[in-house]
């Protein structure tokens, strides 16, 4: 579960006196939900994601993610908190020197899983994203859509409670964007909460569901719409 209570984020900027990135934001996302977060550039989407991964701390309010009070989370506990999240990025962030298999196995090694578990889990998640035949390829040998599927497999490999996708369709062919969201929906159906940030309104209208629209650092809309 994700809960933001009266959250403010104020960036200090010496020359301009500071910028209010988020103002009194209240959001609650229950386990198993699929949520689109939309908004224009500068609306506060990135700031919201940085809060959820605890890259930054709020200047006011409280943030709870997966039972962790992020305001009180000690730095040495941070890696363990992050293991409860699966992150997907617009630029994929795959390790170019590792094969597809190794990229996925890598996160399982990070969380200290056994060799046996890794040998079973990696083919399973690669099969889920239909990339079993590319296991030995390097990221540079794959298309954008394929790379993003590897990133999804990597995010899902640790069986996280929440997957946070930051513009996952931003760098890929629009036609493939639908496949990516469908893949995330499949994962969501397994019980994983998915929070997807996007500025692709067509995609949001097509799939529908819960939409949180951020505008000038505040929640302008939080509700469900029907998909097309």
């Amino acid at each position, binding site marked *: 579960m994700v809960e933001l209570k009266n959250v403010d984020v104020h960036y200090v900027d010496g020359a301009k006196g500071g910028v209010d990135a988020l103002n009194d934001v209240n959001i609650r996302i229950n386990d198993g939900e699929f949520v689109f977060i939309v908004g224009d550039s500068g609306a506060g989407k990135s700031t919201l994601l940085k809060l959820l991964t605890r890259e930054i701390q709020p200047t006011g309010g409280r943030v709870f993610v997966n039972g962790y009070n992020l305001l009180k989370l000690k730095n040495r506990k941070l*890696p363990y908190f*992050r293991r409860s999240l699966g992150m997907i990025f617009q630029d994929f962030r*795959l390790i170019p*020197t590792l094969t597809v298999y190794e990229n996925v196995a890598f*996160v399982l*090694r990070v*969380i*200290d899983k*056994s060799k046996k578990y890794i040998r079973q889990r990696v083919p399973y998640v690669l099969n889920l994203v239909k990339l079993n035949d590319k296991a030995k390829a390097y990221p540079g040998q794959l298309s954008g859509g394929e790379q993003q599927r590897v990133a999804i497999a990597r995010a899902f490999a640790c069986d996280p409670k929440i997957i946070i996708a930051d513009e996952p369709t931003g760098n890929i062919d629009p036609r493939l964007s639908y496949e990516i969201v469908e893949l995330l929906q499949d994962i969501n159906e397994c019980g994983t909460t998915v929070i997807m940030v996007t500025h692709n309104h067509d995609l949001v209208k097509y799939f529908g569901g819960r939409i949180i629209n951020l505008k000038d650092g505040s929640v302008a809309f939080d509700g469900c719409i029907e998909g097309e």
Partner: protein
Amino acid sequence: MRMSNFGYLVRRGIGSVFKNTMMSIASFSVLLVCLLLIGLSVIVALDINIIMTNIEDRNEIEVFVYDDVTDAVLTHISDAVSSNRNTASVKFYSKDEAWADYQEKMPQFKELYASLPRNPMPYTFRVTVKDIKSISDTAAELQTIEGVEKVTAPYNFASALVDIRSTLSIIAGAMLIVMTVTSVIIIYNSIRSSVFTRKKEINIMKVVGATNSFVKIPFFIEGTFIGIVAGAAAWILTKLTYEAIVRLFEGDITIWQVFGLVNIIQFDSITWYVLAADCLLGAILGAVGTTFSTGKYVKV
């Protein structure tokens, strides 16, 4: 951490030594030169110490006694000289022995000796000292003994030796510190460049929940591995260079004898210590350089 995952990190660390060839060569070369210079400085400093000790051992205070002293006074002088706290050894020369010794050392005046009416040499005590720095004080103390006519000691030579030894110790110490600091700084910089080029990779690790130690271990292994290899190479080069220097002096018998080079360190007798020290120091320098350089980037 599981052994299998630790093994994976070790393999990654060693693997990145070969993947980042240029960085590895740069770190290796710097460490090699520094370890070579440190190794040679230490061995040469030890050799100089041995040589200085050899030279010091030849320094004697000569205590000359009045001609007309009784046996009782001679015994008293002998006891007083032997009981001095700085006395290492005492050798007594009777007048005849002193005269024979003198003639043996100065054979070029042989004809002159025959023309002398009597033995000109006094009873003599030759005293070697424990601490050459106190030679002046010791000579002054011996001079106060009843029956002693004159005391001579190589004051200037002794103080020069003391000065040379202190200066060499300072130079060797300074070189050691400078080389060590230089190695750490250059290793720090080359590993930092290596870390910087893999900033993205480190960021991915942190995002997926890697602990600081998980991120640092491969870099640590990389630095340590390069350090050990550089240590082994430095050992070979130290051996070759040192033996070449020794061979250079071996040809000159005068230098060899005057400075007592017979006693200097034979590389074969310390070869394993040098190998162990080079590898250990290389590993430490590599590890310390890596630890400093990864610290900043690991924090996300």
